[in-house]
């Protein structure tokens, strides 16, 4: 990894990205829009123009090797703007690929291929994979995937021996309709046939306690994304509570509102420090698996609390396209459990903590 001052990199990146993402953020549709995915293409274009896909990719793969300090800055800005998380899936896919550069890595770094994560929500993958003599992959089972544009899909599978791995499913298939871009998932069925173009990438630590490597790094990026969601929701709530007047004064001037905003602000700041520490540990080659599990669970819960408060403060308007509040509320549902439910992550981290306490 390239050694540069993390704070400087993050500040510069966030400033540049914020400018670039302003336009896609303005395109995020409200409820009832004809094209729920209207901002997706513009978001990806803005990221590619910024060189984002290569920031955390290895130098030998044509990336900049800046580590999580860079990719988490991108993730946080995306969450803050309420934009989709495909960037995180691309970064995770690059992490899972073999170290030597190949055409697939090159395509990902260049932004030519977009990816969605699917099937990581539960401890046990829903798909089974077997390989034929010629290396072709047969898939059996069901997979819940995001609606919307047809990206490649990175998903875990159970192998014949019981181990798990991740496979990359090529783009294609139907595009299920949805009422909003983060709407209910669509289901894909696999009946044991050979699926052309499916690529078995590497083993995946399903069931491992507090894994590091690509799984741990993906958790930290997801936590940074949810930190952005929490921060974006909070700012939306503060702004509305400042502008909106009831009973002759701003909502924010009611102590019942001000205290709740202050509490969420404190939670978001605590999360920010925890995410920064996890990034520091991972990029510095120090043990970080337990921090990755913890920050992801903490981020999912903080984002949920922040978006819930903002929806409450924004009243009926928050449910409509008049305000951006709803986009955070909807993202919390999908992204909060994308890489595991908080309860499962807390149990994982708690068991580890108790084992260490006993050892001491």
């Amino acid at each position, binding site marked *: 990894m390239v050694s540069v001052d993390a704070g400087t990199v993050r500040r510069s990146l966030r400033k540049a990205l914020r400018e670039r993402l302003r336009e896609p953020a303005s395109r995020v549709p409200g409820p009832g829009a004809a094209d729920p995915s209207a901002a997706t293409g513009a978001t990806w274009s803005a990221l590619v123009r910024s060189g984002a896909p290569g920031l955390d990719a290895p130098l030998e793969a044509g990336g900049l090797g800046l580590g999580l300090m860079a990719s988490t800055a991108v993730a946080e800005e995306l969450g803050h703007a309420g934009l989709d998380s495909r960037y995180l899936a691309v970064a995770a896919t690059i992490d899972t690929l073999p170290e030597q550069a190949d055409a697939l890595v090159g395509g990902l770094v260049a932004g030519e291929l977009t990816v969605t994560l699917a099937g990581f929500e539960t401890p046990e993958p829903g798909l089974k994979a077997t390989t034929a003599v010629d290396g072709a992959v047969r898939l059996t089972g069901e997979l819940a995937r995001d609606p919307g544009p047809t990206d490649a899909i990175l998903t875990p599978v159970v192998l014949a021996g019981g181990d798990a791995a991740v496979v990359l499913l090529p783009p294609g298939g139907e595009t299920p309709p949805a009422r909003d871009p983060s709407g209910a998932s669509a289901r894909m069925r696999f009946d044991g046939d050979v699926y052309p173009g499916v690529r078995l990438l590497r083993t995946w630590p399903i069931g491992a306690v507090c894994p590091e490597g690509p799984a741990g790094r993906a958790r930290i990026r997801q936590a940074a994304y949810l930190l952005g969601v929490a921060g974006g929701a909070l700012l939306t709530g503060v702004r509305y509570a400042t502008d909106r007047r009831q009973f002759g004064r701003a909502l924010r001037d009611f102590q019942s509102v001000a205290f709740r905003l202050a509490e969420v*602000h404190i939670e978001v700041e605590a999360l920010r420090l925890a995410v920064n520490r996890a990034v520091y540990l991972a990029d510095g080659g120090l043990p970080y698996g337990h921090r990755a599990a913890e920050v992801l669970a903490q981020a999912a819960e903080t984002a949920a609390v922040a978006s819930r408060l903002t929806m409450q403060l924004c009243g009926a308007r928050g449910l409509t396209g008049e305000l951006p509040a709803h986009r955070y509320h909807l993202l919390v549902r999908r992204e909060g459990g994308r890489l595991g439910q908080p309860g499962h992550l807390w149990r994982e981290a708690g068991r580890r903590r108790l084992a260490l306490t006993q050892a001491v």
Partner: protein
Amino acid sequence: MYWYADERREYRRHVRTLLAAPPVRAELAALHARPGTDPDVRALYRELGRRGLLAVNWPTRYGGEGRDLLDAAVAGEELARAGVPDTLYVNTVQIVGLFLLMAGSEQQKAMHLPPLARGERFASVLYTEPGSGSDLGSLSTVAVPEATGGWRLSGVKAYHLKSDLTDIGLCAARTGPAGGRYDGISLFVVDLHLPGVHRRRIASIADEQFHHIEFDDVRLGPGDLLGPEHGGWPLLTQALAIERTGLDYSLKAEAWLEAAGAALGPDADPAVCEEVGRLGAAVDASRLLAWEVLSELDADRLDESRAAAAKFYCGELAARIGRWAPTRVTGPLPARPAAVLEAAYREAPGLTIAAGTSEMMLEIVASLALDGLDQEARTW
């Protein structure tokens, strides 16, 4: 990054070595062997003072070690982890000592600080009164100037800790014209052994008992005024912010969760594991918040909102764990963790009241931070 800085690790090791000295261990063992309310910890503190573990960041000419604030925090962490009760340390060193360093005259510093650093004398913080808690501007203790110089102090201070063991008190009193609530407040360093000082205990459910001090026309000298006459309020608010790093509360949370964790073990019920995971991450986050404030103070920056946020988070968390742990850990326990957890439950309610209530902390955060967030939202 402050949390893994090598030089702190080295100093931390040094502190641990000092705490492992037989006289310190003997005093700690004696202390832990006699459970009960309000133990006298002065002998232990004298051992700590001899080893330079109390006034770590004070200048050497005042008996300190001349190190920085972050080293002082490292020492504070290690004292707490060794089981040293922290109230006398916090009041004497972190609050009154800091105040003297910040606003004391050269004569006051030279007189008071060295014996405090050595653990030979101790100090109380005397702000709260029976009718004046969070609203310190309403205090009614008065100091009337004498024609010959000095003051006559009258009034009652209440709900402070360890005041049966202390030698001096940092006392806020009304000295000025009655017009403004805050304009006429002055601060004094009061010798608590003077005639007219009457102390008594107020029983509390916590191990540490409250105290009540009545000043009955106590005669103070001109040199007992700390800072400018009638100008105590700005000093008071500044010192309140500085003392609110949250670190002492974070350390309580850590100790109680660890005691509970050792009793629960890794085979605990999944629901308990989930709670331990959540609380453990919060303990670590509370420490990050506290160290963030300490780092800013060390760089001579004071963000009152951040300090209030740290105190709120750390105090609420410690209180939550203090209530949680004894209800989750059941069955027979070794004497020491059993005593720690039992006492934690009784101490918990005071943690969100002392050093600024949680409501006051939210008031500060709301009044100072939300404007900045609103501006950020409008530039997005």
